[in-house]
């Protein structure tokens, strides 16, 4: 079943006479139970799409439905089925993570027993038990963000919107959150999230979409996105090569102490021998999702 269906979605903002097109004829279908990520540069339209889908914002034109309910004309029906972590959302100052999660569940109509039980569970799963009774203003930014995400995930709403959920979290915390998100999805929730961490998108998503300038550029799995680059291997060289020597083999990125080359499998042997001859250290691996994303979006920027 389709959990979300957006058709011809457009949104323009009038910024003091200057019309900004945040979404432009955007189409997307997300199936029930999917873990779906939306990627894009800053200002590409990710948050605008999430806001429209979560009934926070009206589109200029187009249609959007969640589980068959029209999110534009019948938001009440949709709101009963959703929960959202807003981008850069912040907690109330005087509340503890335990109170926050429990009270939010109670506000949404959960029974006392359910609220208490789920609060304990989510705090434990998110590594927040030790901070459960600490007032928010005494918590670090990452812990506050974790509490906010815990509050939304604890709802186990049929459709969860997470706008950059792991922003500001350390790598350990991010992995804990990923695990909780996976669990929630296993229990039947559909999850739509945005992120700038491409490893996160790869780890979590069943499918992903790339938005650029309000338009859908790509939709599919991370493997498919990597395949679109056309260069499947990633070679990293320590100092020794000049970028222009490698550019004939593929796309070259210059790092502080290294060069990265995205190239085809057929070039690996030749380049390995060349590196060995010159005594240059080299690593070989698959193209990362981040590189595929840079290639895809970069190409579009160059074209325009």
């Amino acid at each position, binding site marked *: 079943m389709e959990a979300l269906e957006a058709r011809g979605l457009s949104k323009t903002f009038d910024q003091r006479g200057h019309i900004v097109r945040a979404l432009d004829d955007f189409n997307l279908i997300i199936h029930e139970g999917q873990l779906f990520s939306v990627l894009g540069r800053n200002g590409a339209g990710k948050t605008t799409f999430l806001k429209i889908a979560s009934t*926070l914002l009206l589109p200029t034109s187009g249609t959007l439905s969640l589980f068959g309910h029209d999110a534009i004309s019948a938001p009440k029906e949709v*709101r009963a089925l959703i929960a959202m972590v*807003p981008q850069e959302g912040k907690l109330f100052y*005087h509340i503890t993570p335990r109170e926050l999660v429990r009270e939010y569940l*109670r*506000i949404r*109509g959960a029974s006392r027993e359910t609220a208490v039980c789920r609060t304990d569970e989510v705090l434990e799963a998110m590594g927040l038990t030790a901070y459960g009774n600490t*007032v928010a203003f005494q918590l670090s930014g990452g812990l506050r963000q974790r509490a906010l995400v815990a509050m939304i995930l604890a709802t186990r709403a049929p459709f969860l919107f997470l706008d950059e959920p792991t922003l500001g979290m350390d790598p350990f915390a991010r992995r804990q959150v990923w695990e909780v998100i996976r669990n929630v999805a296993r229990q039947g929730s559909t999850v739509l999230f945005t992120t700038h961490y491409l490893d996160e998108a790869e780890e979590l998503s069943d499918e992903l979409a790339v938005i650029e300038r309000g338009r859908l550029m790509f939709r599919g799995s991370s493997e498919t996105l990597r395949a679109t680059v056309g260069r499947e291997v990633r070679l990293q060289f320590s100092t020794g090569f000049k970028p222009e020597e490698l550019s004939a083999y593929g796309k070259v990125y210059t790092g502080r102490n290294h060069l990265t080359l995205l190239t085809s499998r057929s070039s690996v042997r030749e380049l390995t021998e060349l590196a060995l001859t010159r005594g240059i250290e080299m690593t070989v691996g698959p193209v990362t999702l981040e590189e595929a994303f840079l290639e895809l979006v970069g190409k579009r920027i160059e074209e325009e």
Partner: protein
Amino acid sequence: MTIRSQSNAALRICFINGVLPLWRSPLLIAAQFLTPFSFLFFLFVIAPRSLFPFGVMGGLLFTALFAGSSMLTDCAYLRLERQFQQVFVASPVRPIAYIMGMALSELAFTAPAATVFFVILLVVVPVGLVGLVALIGIFLLTWLMATTLGFFVSTLFIQLRESWPIATLIFSLLSVIPPVFYPATEIPQNWQWVALLAPSTFSAQLADRAAGLGGTLTTGSLILNAPAFDVAMLVGITLLFGTAALFLSRWREP
């Protein structure tokens, strides 16, 4: 969600936004006392003692009106800076539950100062039980009028900084300039109609009557001077602002 669950949601929003902050930072109460008591002190020093009861009544109504100012800035802050209103929009919580929850939390902040003003009033003016009940009703209507106005206006801002001066402007116009802290008869009779432009005038007129203070408008019109007119206006304006808050405010951004 049913009416019962929406009421429960409102009470819990009041708990997290009003009761918990007061419990954990009691100093927050001081801010609620500061302005009305400063006005009262000022009146006590410079005005004749006969006007002191009007100052106490003004302080009482000011606390109800100030709840509206706090509602405006708090709601704008939670929506624009903390992105927290969005958490309630994208949920089964209805606007009425959120508005009432926020308004009740402002009432929680206001309650200590209002209680002190009620006590002072009972000491300086012999208000009977009926008068006291009427005063509590007028206070609550004024609070509801101010907070619904505050919520409606809060949803119009796209920048937080704009909300602070506008809140000060609106609620100064409602609480300081109209005859809230002073008797309406202090305004020259030809200009008393101007006072009718401020909704808080009706609260003050009714409250002064309920406490038997006198000093109400003498515009020359029997209708305009009638208590029923003040009741109708206060209830009507509260309904108007309530309707604006529920149906015209930007619960979902346009």
